[in-house]
C-alpha cells in the first residue's frame, strides 16, 4: 500500500498534478535578521557569502563559496533546544530530532487582511477555532502556519522588522492561540515574520509565547516562511527539515510544500 | 666661615606619648596627643604657638598643612620634615634658626605616627622610588635586608662580632626596664640575643626594632621665654646635618657625620669625652657603632672594641640610649627620629625620672634616616647642654 502511495506521489509529481512550492526566502547579505535589545549585546551577524573560487586560479573547474550565518537566519527552523524551556529534550537538537515529524500536513490560517490593517495583529484561539469550523479541525502531528504575506516586505529590513521607538511591530500568535494549538497536538507553528512570535511579544506573559510554549512541549518553530499565499488552507504537505547541525538549536532551511493542483 | 651660634634659643617641654604596638587611630590622633603633651608641659594654649614642625610617615594624604586646619592652629611658620630618623634634629635646626631670626616665637616640633596592622606594608609600597625599583623586588621587604648587608660587610671589614652588637642591645634593654613606657619589659641576656630567631643573616630578632604607634614632641623658644614661664630648658651647643654623603662607598660603612664631625665639636667647643650621655639612632646596632666612630669617639673600625669596653647602661661610664632606644622602647615611625632627642632634653634638664643619668648636663644626640636604596641618606647630630634655670 505504501509503495503505491509513493508511486502515486511520483506519478502526481511527474504528471503535474502536484506542485512543489518553495516556501523559502533567498539567503544573502540582505536577508533581514532579528535585532535584539541592546542589552543582549550579541546579535546574529549579517549573512556572509564569500567566494572561494570561480573557475580561476583558486580553482580552475569550479565555483564555490563559503558561508557564515546564524542558525536562525532567513527562512529557518527553531529546534526545542533554542529556548530554555526546551533545553532538556534529548531529541530537541537539529541532529537528534525525529524527521518523521517534520514532513506533515499543514494548516494555513490566512490573516493577510488583518495584518495589512494592523501590523501588531495577534491571532487568538477563538479565531483559530472559527477557522477550524470553516476548514476542518487541526489534527495531531500537523503543522500550523500563519499567513501574513509578510514575505512581501522581505526585500527591506526596515519594512520587514517594522520597528519604531517602541520596538518591532509584526503580527504573531497570542498566548492562548499557542496554548490552544498545543492542546491539539500540533508538531509546530510557523509564521512569515522574522520570528515565530509577534514583534511585541516580549511584553506578553509569558514573554515570547510561541518560543516559550512550543519548545517547552518539544515542538518546532518555522520563521520567515515565504509564499504561504500559494498554499490551500488544508491539504498541502510541508517538508521542513533542518540541516543536521551537531547540537544545533536551529537552522536555515529550504522549506517546501507539496500541493495538489486542480 | 664660622657658623652663627644658637645663642639664646632653647629647647623645652619634652613630651613622649606612651607607645602602643598597634593603633586604630590615625597619625592625626597621635600628633595631637604629642602637641597637647608638650603644650600642657609648658602651660600653653594652642593659639600661643606661632610655629609648627611635623614629621610623620602616616599622615597621608595630609601633611603639616592639613594638620593646621585639623588641629585649629594658626602658625606663621610651618615645616614638614620627611627625614625619618633624622627628623628630630633637622626639625630642631630649622626651628631654632626661625626663632633666632624672629620668624617665630614658639615652635612646637612633633614626630608622630600610627601603626595599624597594615601600616608597615603600606609604607613600604610608597617609601621611595629606588627602594621600589631596586630593593624590594629582591625580597628585602623593608630595611632588614639592607642592614643585614651593611652588618655583613661591616663585620667582614672590621672583624666585629654578633657579641659586639649584642652588648649594645642588652644594655639598652637594661635601660628600658627603667622606662615604664618601653614596649619591651623583660630582661635580655647576651645568650638570648645570640640565640634569637634569624631574620636576615646576620641580623636576628633582637637587632630589629618593633614598629609601634606613638608621638614625641618638644618646644623651641627664646631663653627669656622659657625663663619667664619657669620651664627647664636645654641649650643647643652645636648641630650638623648631611645628606647622601660618600655615594661611592660600595657599601655604607660610614655616615654623613664623618664629613662634619670636626665642625660639630669645634662649634660645641668640647670633645666626645665631655659627653655625659649619648643618644644614637639605633634601628640596628651596627648603625649605632658607626655613629660612635663617625662622631669621633674612636677610630673607624674600632667602634665595636670601644663599646665593648664601656658600660652603656644608665649607671655606666657611657650611658647610651637611656630610655631603651628604639630597640627596646619601640619605633613609632618618624617619632623614632625624635626619641633620642626628647630623652636627651629630659636628661640635661634633669627631668628624666626613672631613667635619669645622675648628674647629666651634656648630651650628644644623633639622627640617621631614610634607606632610600641601599643605605641611609640623611644624617644629623646635636650637642645639648642643660640650661641653668
Amino acid at each position, binding site marked *: 500500500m505504501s509503495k503505491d502511495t509513493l508511486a502515486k506521489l511520483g506519478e502526481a509529481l511527474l504528471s503535474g498534478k502536484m506542485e512543489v512550492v518553495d516556501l523559502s526566502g533567498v539567503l544573502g547579505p540582505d536577508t533581514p535578521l532579528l535585532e535584539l535589545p541592546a542589552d543582549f549585546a550579541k546579535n546574529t551577524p549579517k549573512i556572509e557569502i*564569500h*567566494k*572561494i573560487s570561480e573557475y*580561476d586560479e*583558486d580553482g580552475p573547474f569550479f565555483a564555490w563559496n*563559503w558561508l557564515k550565518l546564524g542558525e536562525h537566519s532567513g527562512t529557518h527552523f527553531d529546534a526545542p533546544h533554542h529556548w530554555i524551556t526546551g533545553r532538556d529534550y534529548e531529541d530537541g537538537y537539529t541532529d537528534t530530532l525525529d524527521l518523521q515529524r517534520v514532513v506533515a500536513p499543514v494548516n494555513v490560517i490566512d490573516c493577510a487582511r488583518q495584518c495589512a490593517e494592523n501590523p501588531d495583529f495577534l491571532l487568538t484561539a477563538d479565531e483559530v477555532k472559527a477557522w477550524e469550523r470553516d476548514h476542518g479541525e487541526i489534527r495531531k502531528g500537523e503543522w500550523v502556519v500563519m499567513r501574513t504575506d509578510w514575505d512581501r516586505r522581505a526585500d527591506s529590513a526596515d519594512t520587514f522588522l517594522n520597528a519604531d521607538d517602541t520596538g518591532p511591530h509584526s503580527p504573531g500568535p497570542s498566548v492562548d492561540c499557542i496554548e490552544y494549538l498545543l492542546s491539539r497536538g500540533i508538531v509546530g507553528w510557523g509564521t512569515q515574520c522574522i520570528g515565530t512570535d509577534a514583534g511585541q511579544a516580549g511584553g506578553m506573559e509569558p514573554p515570547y509565547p510561541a518560543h516559550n510554549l512550543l519548545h517547552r512541549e518539544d515542538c518546532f518553530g518555522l520563521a520567515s516562511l515565504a509564499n504561504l499565499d500559494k498554499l490551500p488552507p488544508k491539504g498541502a504537505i510541508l517538508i521542513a527539515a533542518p540541516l543536521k547541525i551537531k547540537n544545533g538549536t536551529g537552522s536555515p532551511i529550504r522549506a517546501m510544500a507539496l500541493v495538489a493542483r486542480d | 666661615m664660622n657658623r652663627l651660634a644658637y645663642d639664646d634659643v632653647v629647647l623645652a617641654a619634652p613630651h613622649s606619648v606612651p607607645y602602643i604596638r598597634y593603633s586604630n587611630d590615625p597619625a592625626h590622633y597621635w600628633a595631637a596627643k604629642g602637641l597637647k603633651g608638650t603644650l600642657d608641659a609648658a602651660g600653653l594654649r594652642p593659639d600661643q604657638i606661632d610655629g609648627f614642625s611635623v614629621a610623620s610617615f602616616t599622615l597621608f594624604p595630609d601633611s603639616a598643612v592639613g594638620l593646621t586646619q585639623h588641629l585649629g592652629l594658626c602658625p606663621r611658620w610651618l615645616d614638614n620634615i620627611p627625614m625619618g630618623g633624622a627628623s628630630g634634629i633637622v626639625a630642631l635646626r630649622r626651628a631654632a634658626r626661625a626663632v633666632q631670626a624672629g620668624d617665630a616665637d614658639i615652635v612646637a616640633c612633633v614626630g608622630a605616627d600610627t601603626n595599624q596592622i597594615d601600616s*608597615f*606594608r603600606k609604607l*613600604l*609600597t610608597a617609601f621611595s*622610588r*629606588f627602594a*621600589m*625599583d*631596586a*630593593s*624590594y*623586588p*629582591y*625580597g*628585602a*621587604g*623593608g630595611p*632588614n*635586608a639592607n642592614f*643585614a*648587608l*651593611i652588618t*655583613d*660587610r661591616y663585620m*667582614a671589614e672590621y672583624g666585629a662580632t654578633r657579641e659586639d652588637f649584642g652588648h649594645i642591645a642588652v644594655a639598652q634593654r637594661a635601660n628600658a626596664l627603667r622606662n615604664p613606657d618601653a614596649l619591651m619589659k623583660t630582661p635580655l641576656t647576651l645568650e638570648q640575643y645570640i640565640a634569637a*630567631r*634569624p*631574620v*636576615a*643573616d*646576620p*641580623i636576628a630578632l633582637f637587632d630589629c626594632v618593633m614598629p609601634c604607634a606613638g608621638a614625641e614632641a618638644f618646644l623651641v623658644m627664646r631663653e627669656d621665654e622659657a625663663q619667664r614661664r619657669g620651664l627647664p630648658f636645654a641649650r643647643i651647643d652645636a648641630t650638623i646635618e648631611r645628606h647622601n654623603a660618600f*655615594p*661611592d662607598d*660600595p*657599601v655604607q660603612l660610614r655616615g654623613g657625620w664623618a664629613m662634619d664631625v670636626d665642625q660639630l665639636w669645634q662649634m660645641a667647643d668640647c670633645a666626645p669625652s665631655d659627653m655625659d650621655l649619648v643618644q644614637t639612632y639605633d634601628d640596628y646596632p651596627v648603625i649605632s657603632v658607626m655613629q660612635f666612630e663617625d662622631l669621633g669617639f674612636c677610630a673607624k673600625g674600632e667602634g665595636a672594641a670601644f663599646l665593648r669596653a664601656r658600660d652603656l647602661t644608665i649607671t655606666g661610664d657611657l650611658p647610651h640610649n637611656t630610655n631603651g632606644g628604639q630597640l627596646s622602647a619601640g619605633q613609632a615611625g618618624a617619632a623614632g627620629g625624635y626619641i633620642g632627642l626628647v630623652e636627651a632634653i629630659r636628661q640635661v634638664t634633669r627631668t628624666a625620672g626613672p631613667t635619669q643619668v645622675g648628674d647629666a648636663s651634656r648630651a650628644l644626640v644623633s639622627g640617621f634616616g631614610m634607606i632610600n*636604596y*641601599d643605605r641611609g641618606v640623611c644624617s644629623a647630630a646635636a650637642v645639648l647642654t642643660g640650661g641653668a634655670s
Partner: protein
Amino acid sequence: MTDPLQPPPKKNPQVRSPLAHLPPVPRSRAALGLTARAAEGRFALQQCADCGAVQYPPRDACRVCLSTDLPWRDQPPMGALIAETTIRISPDLYFRDRMPWRMGTVRLASGVSVLCHLHGDVRKGPVRLILRLDRAGQGVIMALPEQEGPDMADDPQLRELGADPKHRRVLITDARAPTTRALVRALLDAGAATVFVGEAEPWRRWPGRDALAAMDRVEIVPLDLTDSASVREAAGTLGGKTDILINNAAFLRPGGLLERSDTVFAQQELEVNYLGLMRLAQGFGPMMHARGGDGVNSAAAWVNILSAHALAADPAHAGYSAASAAALSLTQSLRAEMRGGGVRVMTVLTGPPDDEWHAEIPPPKVAPRALARALVDGLQRGLEEVACGDVARDLVERWQRDAKVLERELAEGAGR
C-alpha cells in the same frame, strides 16, 4: 654545588593549589627600561650620554653631571659580591613562600652597587650578573658564579627567573607544522617531562605522524585551533597539566593585497593565526593563569611563534603579515593578563622558514632546528622577545631604529 632538580612529586589532590603570589610589581617608568632589556635577554644599564657615568638604580638624570640623556647600554656583566644576606622573614607573600632567599650587594667595575638575587653557588668575590624577568614580569638582576657549574640551572632562585622545560609538560599546538619535530626533539633534550602535540583534522594523513607518535614521552592529542569546541575540549583535558604552551600553528598563503581578489585566504589566516590564538587563550589561559603558583609543577610559559613581519608588513605576504600583527597585538594583551598568574608570555619572531610557502625567497632561512634551539634557550632564560634567524634579528633592529624607514624598505618587495 646545585642539587639536581628532582621530578616534581605527584600532586596531592587533597591539598589546595597555591595561589600565584608575585614579587613586588610596581616600578618607576625609568626602571621599566630594565624590564624591557631583560625581556630581550640583554644586560644593560643606563649610561650617561654626556659623561659616561653608569647609573643604578634607574633614574631620570645623571648622578654625576645632571644630564637627562641616559640611554641603555650593554654593560660587562662582571662584578664582585661584597655583602650578602639570607632573608628568612619577609612581609612579602611571594618571598614568604620561598624562604630562605639569598640576596647581596654586587659592586660593578663601573662604580655602581647593585642589590641582586644570588645563585646558590655564589660566594663572595667575582660573579657574573644576568638581567632577567622575575615572576611578575619585571626586570631583576641576579649574580651567578663566574664559571658554569653542573646542574646550575636547577637552582631554585634561578629557576624562578625562567621557564626551563626541564620536568615540565609542554603542549605544541600543531603537529603538522614544519617546526614541530625539531621542537619536540629540543624540548625532550632539555628534559621536558611530556610533550603533547595537537593534531587537527585527524582524517588527513600526513608524513611523519607515525615517527612522532612513536617517540617516547610524546602524545598526539586532538586539537584544532579553528574549532572552538575542539579547543575547549583540549583545554578541559590538558589545561590542568600544560606547564608550557607553544603555539606554532600558522596558516599562510603568499600574495599581495591587490593580487588576491577575495578574502578567503585572509579569513583563514585570521582564523588560524589570530582567532586560533584567541581560542587557545580563552581555553588554556585561565587554567594556566590559575596554576602559576603551583610550585615546581606550575604553569610557566606561553610561547607564540610569529612572523617577524608582525612588526612591519611584507607586502608580498600582505594577509599573513596583517594576521601576524593581529596575533602580536593579542600576545601583548595575553601577556598583560597572564602576568597576574606569573606565567611568562614569549614571542618568537622568526624570519622566513624553509617551507613550501617561502620557496621563492632567497636564503638565509630559519631551519626548524635553529628555531627550536632559540625557543628552548628563550624559555630557559625566561625571555619575552626572541628574534630567531638573521632575517628576524635584522628586521627587529631596523624596526627599532626607524619603523618608517623599514616600511619604505620593505615596500620594494611589493609585487607591482
